[in-house]
């Protein structure tokens, strides 16, 4: 079961976890990741812009790719957009499988790939300054190791 969602509002982590593979007793474990906004200075905040339409499509493709690589019972991705402040949740990614290795591996894959494929852009504000976050080579490298 694959589910992806893009929304401005917050999500409830417990409810999202419970919805990854509900009622599937073949599931032995669910691995999840939650990304949060870090405090990066006084008055810090960030605004996430995205490309409606393409974002959902890319997240769906990433989830389907994970389901091809690991034996999964469920994949779930929720990504927020709009203005967020330190401590706010940005993203939820989870994978359910019969065994933990597949769940952990798939979850890490989801996050690595969505950081380099999903069309989101972060604009950071701090101390009256604003700057678009630059893509990191380390994120590309993290995603690239799944291609080897």
């Amino acid at each position, binding site marked *: 079961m694959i589910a992806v969602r893009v929304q401005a509002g917050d999500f409830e982590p417990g409810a999202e976890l419970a919805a990854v593979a509900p009622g599937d007793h073949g599931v032995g474990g669910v691995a999840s990741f939650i*990304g949060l906004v870090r405090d990066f200075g006084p008055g810090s905040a960030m605004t*996430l812009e995205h*490309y409606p339409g*393409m974002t959902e499509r890319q997240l769906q493709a990433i989830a389907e790719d994970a389901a091809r690589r690991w034996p999964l019972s469920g994949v779930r991705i929720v*990504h927020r957009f709009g203005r967020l402040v330190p401590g706010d949740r940005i993203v939820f990614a989870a994978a359910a499988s019969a065994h933990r290795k597949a769940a952990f591996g798939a979850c890490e894959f989801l996050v690595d790939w969505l*950081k380099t494929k999903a069309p989101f*852009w*972060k604009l950071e504000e701090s101390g009256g300054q604003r700057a*678009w976050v630059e893509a990191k080579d380390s994120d590309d490298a993290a995603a690239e190791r799944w291609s080897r």
Partner: protein
Amino acid sequence: MKLVYFAWLKERIGVAEEDVSPPAGVDTVVKLLEWLRGRGPNYALALSNPAVIRVAVNLEYRKGDWPVRPGDEVAIFPPVTGG
């Protein structure tokens, strides 16, 4: 053809989206970018470094040789930074 821009590319160009009708020979991603650079200093500046430009045609990532046609939606944006 509909063009859409995001993040700092949108700010440098000065519009979020626009409808354009490039001349007949402008039929690939790379030719479209070249044609856009000639439309004004804001385009030339925004599109000056190909290493930080990504393109999607009809919602899928595409490289330079990919064909672009009337009716396509072409998105031009910097490397993504979500997650």
